[in-house]
């Protein structure tokens, strides 16, 4: 069941790369789309099989691999993984769909994307720390190539920076994993085994810190974020969708799964710092986004801010905030993918991403009216306007976190206000205003180019109106995650002044 999600894309990838006969760009795209379409359908089937009442891991698949190393092929699924898998399957399909047929070495491109998708699915399902790490590291290489071969200007610089940062993250994570096993005298790297490990609090704190920094680079959290704007901007829209929509989630997923899961005591000790860190990331990302002149860069910075909400929810680790954080990961993935896709279309049609050159794209006849309308929708979703999915997930995070970290939560609310500021700047400059008569002979946006955006936009609206369909999958998992953590701070502010400091 689960292996299909991992191996189908990888087999597809190998087929595209190595079949002996000639494949045109269009054929490889279609083939990749079919593969990822099947994966997507398979994911939907997964939802029907998923047991909502079970808060443990489900659908185990186990195969010994290198038992003496403690490395086994061990997959399983819980609510958190399910959400991430769904996001991965959907966004892979979207990324493939939004790619343009005309590029250099298309077979290689599509093979790499499928490969990344399979690897990431594996990482989200891995029940073995080493397996997770391997898959986490392996996706690096194809992504590096995807950025450095098909990227925009400064792609080499960006790809290298990305590679080095992620590699560093890998080292830290591996150190933490090995340290946990070593210090805990565990011979097996299985997740269940690791959960049993009982370490002294100081050790836990050190190991957790390593994980936090390691995954923090991946998310990224300020100040480890500087690879992000460069990489996202240099990457082609499809790759940016994968990077921002899915791969950043590996960071928060890792923090929740391994940090929070394995070191609950240390987590509860560090959580106030985490909350501050999260709020700082939110504010920093949002404020910096306001100053950007390049819309893709602006969206990239918005991602930093929005991943901060996930961290806030995790830091507060109430049941509600965890559900919120997990849902926020999904909603952020959807919205960011939508934004990157639209920005990509704008760049492809207008030929620039500069705010001071864009204007009047809302023009119904000569502009990009549908793209503009969706840009308004996605910007507003990102800014947390109710009725769209961004609001409810952020709200759950806020409501869940407020009783624990009131000030940090309120600072994050300020962050959504700042989000509104830069998205209004973006929409005003890009969509509103008058077309420049000298330049405005842009190509038409075909329906095919709109399909991914329409799919995502539909999800953003539907899940915004009916958030139950999004949040209830992760409810049980959140409950069990939170139950594992000792409550050092009871939710007992009911009559206490909530405005106590950090």
């Amino acid at each position, binding site marked *: 069941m689960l292996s299909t999600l991992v191996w189908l894309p990888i087999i597809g990838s190998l087929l595209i790369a190595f079949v002996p006969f000639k494949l045109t760009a269009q054929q490889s795209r279609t083939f990749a789309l079919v593969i990822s379409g099947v994966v997507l359908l398979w994911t939907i089937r997964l939802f029907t099989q998923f047991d909502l009442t079970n808060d443990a891991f489900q659908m185990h698949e186990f195969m010994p691999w290198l038992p003496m190393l403690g490395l086994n092929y061990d997959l399983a699924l819980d609510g958190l993984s399910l959400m991430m898998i769904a996001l991965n399957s959907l966004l892979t399909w979207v990324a493939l769909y939004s790619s343009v047929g005309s590029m250099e070495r298309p077979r290689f491109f599509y093979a790499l994307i499928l490969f990344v998708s399979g690897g990431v699915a594996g990482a989200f399902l891995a029940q073995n720390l080493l397996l997770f790490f391997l898959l986490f590291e392996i996706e690096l290489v194809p992504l590096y190539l995807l950025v450095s071969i098909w990227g925009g200007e400064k792609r080499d610089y960006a790809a290298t920076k990305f590679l080095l940062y992620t590699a560093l993250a890998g080292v830290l994570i591996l150190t933490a994993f090995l340290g946990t096993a070593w210090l805990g005298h565990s011979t097996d790297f299985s997740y269940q085994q690791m959960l049993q490990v009982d370490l002294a609090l100081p050790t836990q704190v050190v190991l957790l810190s390593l994980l936090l920094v390691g995954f923090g680079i991946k998310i990224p959290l300020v100040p480890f974020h500087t690879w992000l704007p460069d990489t996202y901007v240099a990457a082609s829209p499809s790759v940016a969708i994968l990077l921002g929509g899915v791969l950043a989630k590996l960071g928060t997923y890792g923090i929740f799964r391994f940090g929070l899961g394995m070191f609950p005591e240390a987590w509860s000790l560090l959580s106030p710092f985490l909350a501050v860190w999260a709020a700082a990331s939110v504010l920093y990302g949002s404020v910096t986004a306001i100053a950007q002149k390049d819309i893709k860069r602006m969206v990239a910075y918005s991602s930093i801010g929005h991943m901060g909400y996930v961290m806030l929810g995790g830091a507060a680790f109430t049941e509600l905030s965890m559900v919120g954080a997990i849902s926020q990961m999904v909603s952020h993935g959807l919205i960011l993918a939508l934004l990157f896709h639209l920005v990509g279309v704008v760049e492809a049609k207008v030929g620039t991403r500069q705010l001071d050159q864009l204007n009047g794209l*809302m*023009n*119904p*006849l*000569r502009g990009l009216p549908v793209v503009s309308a969706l840009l308004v929708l996605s910007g507003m979703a990102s800014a947390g306007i109710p009725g769209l999915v961004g609001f409810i997930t952020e709200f759950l995070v806020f409501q869940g976190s407020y009783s624990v970290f009131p000030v940090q939560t309120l600072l994050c609310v300020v962050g959504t206000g700042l989000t509104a500021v830069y998205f209004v700047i973006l929409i005003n400059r890009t969509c509103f205003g*008058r*077309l420049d*008569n000298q330049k*405005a*002979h842009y*190509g*038409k946006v075909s329906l095919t180019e709109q399909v991914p955006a329409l799919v995502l936009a539909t999800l953003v609206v539907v899940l915004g109106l009916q958030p139950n369909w999004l949040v209830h999958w992760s409810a049980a998992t959140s409950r069990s995650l939170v139950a594992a953590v000792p409550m050092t701070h009871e939710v007992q502010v009911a009559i206490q002044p909530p405005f106590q400091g950090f």
Partner: protein
Amino acid sequence: MNDTAVLSPTLSPSTHEFSEVIHRLEAGGSMLPDTPENLKQIIGIYKAYAVPMDFYWRDLLYIAEKVFLNPLPAFKYFISDKYLDRPNAYAGDGADLRIWRGEADAHPELRDFMAKGEFNRKLPKLFHHLWHDRVNMEFAEACMEAMLWHEDINPQFNAYLDGDEYKQNSDLAIRAYFKGNPLMLGLYKLFPDMFLEQVKKLSYYANLGLFWEVMAPVFFEMSDLYDEGKMTTVPEAMDFLVNGIFAVAGRPIFHHAYIDGKCYEIIPKSQGFTWLYEAALPYVEAVFYRTAPFRGTKSYNAQAGQVPSDQKDFHYGILYADVFPVGSAGIPPTLLMQDMLHFLPDYLIEDYQQHGRGEDDILIQLGITFQRSMYNVTSAVIQALRAALLYPLDDPNPDHLKANRQFFEQQIDRFKRPEARLRDVQDQSYR
């Protein structure tokens, strides 16, 4: 008036910003460059314009003469058969002066569109109306409003509207119209000026209707001549217009209202108002040059000062308008462009399909074509004025040529404003 003289050697070249255009005008040309592409575009659009115009003038007269002061004129665009069959005075066998060789009643394409619409079904009129599958009379009324509101450009006509005779004529008509309606008569007694102002507006309906009654057959004839291969250059097209202007210059402008089968001469023909002076020239000034800023592109905020405080400084007509926002909100000419869209000749549709976004931005493409064609009409007006008020282009007297030059330069000066599109229409790539 075929002035086809070449530039006189006795005059030094113009140093005007648009010297090229000046020289072209002096050589008997148009502001629009003489290219086959331009000719094709303007003739095609004249034809597409003439069909809805055939409706405009009929309905304008219908409103001025029959609907009159109906306080709830919900059906003012539901023109009666009589007005649909009403013979155009410049077409058909019974014409006063036959300009178009076609029939005098409503154009067959118009009748077809009114009956079936783009929906292409014969459904009740009301359905087509509500489905907005109809001619946009609103814009024709807006043109009328522009003429009414810019009252300084039609001094004699307006002086008459403000006079006692007009008041008496209207009074008779108003009383007759509201006979047996004590409410409206009572209101009239209380607020006579309100009713009088409405009648003045209706007089402008008649004015514009009579103006367009001439233009429709002129454009139809030009289209036919082009199709027959008898009109081959832009200056020829312009000269046809110049001749047309002269030929009907003396046509009377009047306003009659028909109430209970009786004719009330609100502005009698005997007042001596002429087509050229009381309709054509004010129309060109009000609609081509001035009108009012589109609410979708200019702020009406008094403190922002985007709208000039002097009517003379209004330059928002088709010669100045930015056509690119057509199709957006707050751009009234969209209505006209949409009207023309239904009646484009095939050769223009083909042309548009090969440029820009083809069918998708056809409204803008035809709008720019329309702008070109109106530069040609304006050229005709300038040349006609030059012929009427100044000297032949081949006049041997250098002083006369200088006067002509001065006149042309004055006219073209109005296009020095940054928003004017004269420079754009010189270039074929502006589309």
